[in-house]
């Protein structure tokens, strides 16, 4: 046991506890305020204000017995202040001011009830945050704040931008929503299905932000994957019969399951085929596979996220790297390619084809897409080509390819790897 906590430690612990208490209440608080004010952006603001107030007052006076009640009373008081400042209140707003003032006069406990039934409101919140009118980064920030209860600071750290940048994104987004009359609307029916795509897109963006960045520098980054998974679960509660939601969950669970194996003890990245599969989270893989099965049951087998999940599932199903069903993976990439015309997907298909049918088959496909403009600066193209050429014994050409890849590489580690591979063509005289 360490020595007694310093004042700073103790202060940090208190803030963490307050923050945790607020987070537990946050869904109900936001739903209650949203319903009451009929204004999602305002409700969201007041929810965060309530946290700030708690952080100011509770360290002095202690955490109240009923923290939820305290938070909602505080938020309502601020709502009243806000409404009073707004000129030209609508009739509804005037009524609201009247009601809130009456509450203020009455015992504070009377109307500090929090709505437990958050369902309808949750639908409204997530679809508002992910409205296609808003830029994708703004959608992500709003969704993380409202659905996952992240603070601006936490979002800034997660995306490696300044707090000011996040604040600005959110302010602009709220303005757009207000100006477009979207402060309190609910998509339903067909509109819901259409809008679903923009929600899935945001969740996937957040997941990839956490997933691609899990190099151990920023502790919050792998946590972004957890936040994305949580949002997925929220969406499942709202749209349980949408196959693609299960497909996205599957994709995320199956990818996240490999987290522990993706870096070695020095923090260097380990490629999937080189990973120690004993470090894969089998429980999470189980969840992912079940979600994939459900997605298929619901008819989403050939759709964007479900297809990608199916590809990752092929890896999860393989006991060892050698046991991987590359033929199946190549087929799935083929389906994905037909769905979304993308040279990057074709390149991935080439890799799978190379593994399934030999390097010549892979190389043939690579040559077909080599001139795609979108792949011009994509270092994986010459890297993959170099690999096939090496396996075919065409060493001088392989070296050229790897050197080309090294020049295009986007970070030092990748560049070094490509340079090593280029050098190795001279030494080995054959496949690595």
């Amino acid at each position, binding site marked *: 046991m360490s020595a007694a906590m310093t004042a700073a430690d103790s202060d940090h612990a208190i803030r963490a*506890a307050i923050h*945790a208490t607020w987070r537990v209440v946050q869904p109900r608080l936001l739903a209650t305020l949203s319903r009451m004010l009929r204004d999602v952006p305002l409700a969201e603001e007041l929810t965060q204000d309530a946290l700030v107030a708690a952080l100011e007052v509770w360290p002095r006076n202690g955490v109240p017995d009923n923290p939820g009640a305290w938070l909602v009373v505080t938020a309502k008081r601020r709502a009243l202040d806000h409404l009073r400042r707004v000129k030209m209140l609508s009739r509804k707003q005037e009524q609201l001011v009247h009601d809130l003032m009456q509450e203020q006069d009455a015992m504070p406990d009377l109307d500090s009830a929090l709505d*437990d039934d958050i*369902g309808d409101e949750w639908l409204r919140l997530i679809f508002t945050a992910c409205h296609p009118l808003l830029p994708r980064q703004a959608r992500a920030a709003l969704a993380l704040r409202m659905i996952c209860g992240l603070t601006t600071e936490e979002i800034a750290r997660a995306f490696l931008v300044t707090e000011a940048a996040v604040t600005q994104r959110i302010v602009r987004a709220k303005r757009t929503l207000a100006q477009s009359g979207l402060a309190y609307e609910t998509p339903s029916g067909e509109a819901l299905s259409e809008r679903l795509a923009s929600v899935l897109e945001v969740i996937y963006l957040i997941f990839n932000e956490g997933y691609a960045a899990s190099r151990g520098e920023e502790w919050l980054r792998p946590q972004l994957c*957890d936040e994305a998974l949580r949002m997925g*679960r929220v969406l499942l509660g709202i749209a349980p019969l949408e196959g693609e939601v299960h497909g996205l969950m599957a994709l995320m669970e199956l990818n996240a399951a490999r987290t522990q194996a993706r870096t070695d003890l020095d923090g260097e990245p380990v490629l999937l085929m080189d990973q120690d599969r004993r*470090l894969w989270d089998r429980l999470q893989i189980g969840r992912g596979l079940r979600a994939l099965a459900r997605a298929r049951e619901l008819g989403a087998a050939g759709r964007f996220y479900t297809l990608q999940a199916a590809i990752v599932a092929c890896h999860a199903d393989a006991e060892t790297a050698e046991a991987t069903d590359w033929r199946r993976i190549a087929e799935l990439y083929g389906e994905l390619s037909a769905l979304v015309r993308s040279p990057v997907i074709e390149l991935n298909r080439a890799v799978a084809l190379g593994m399934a049918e030999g390097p010549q088959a892979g190389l043939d496909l690579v040559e077909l897409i080599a001139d795609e403009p979108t792949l011009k600066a994509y270092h994986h193209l010459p890297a993959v080509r170099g690999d096939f050429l090496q396996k075919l014994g065409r060493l001088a050409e392989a070296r050229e390819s790897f050197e080309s890849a090294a020049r295009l590489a986007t970070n030092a580690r990748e560049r070094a790897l490509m340079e090593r591979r280029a050098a190795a063509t001279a030494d080995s005289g054959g496949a690595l």
Partner: protein
Amino acid sequence: MRFMYIVTSSQPMVGPSPALMEAMQTISEREIKAGRMIDNGGLMPLATGARVRILDGELSVIDGPFVEAKEVIGGYAVFELRDKAEALAMAKEFMQLHLDHMPGWDGTCEVRAFATAGTEGACQIDARSRAAALA
């Protein structure tokens, strides 16, 4: 982080009161919709259960009811939460329901994190060491 809540009591369980049942139902629905509760369940009374026990190298099957009035598990819940602080705050909410709707009841909610390869202080050997040992 995934946590399991295990609720135990040393008092004879007549089962949760209807008021508690309703309150638990409400909190469960809310927390499932919020994407935090993964699973939950109440367990049938110990008397209806059975035990498979190993003692002195011998395995035996014992059908309920059981004589000892030890701490009995009444139910469990599984949550996916940010950290231990959040898990404790949630557990307090959970237990407050018991206080509100079943006054006079004494019991414990044990909060345990699921073990993963990266979890510090996991009682299982760290997965990497295990992998190294197997290599």
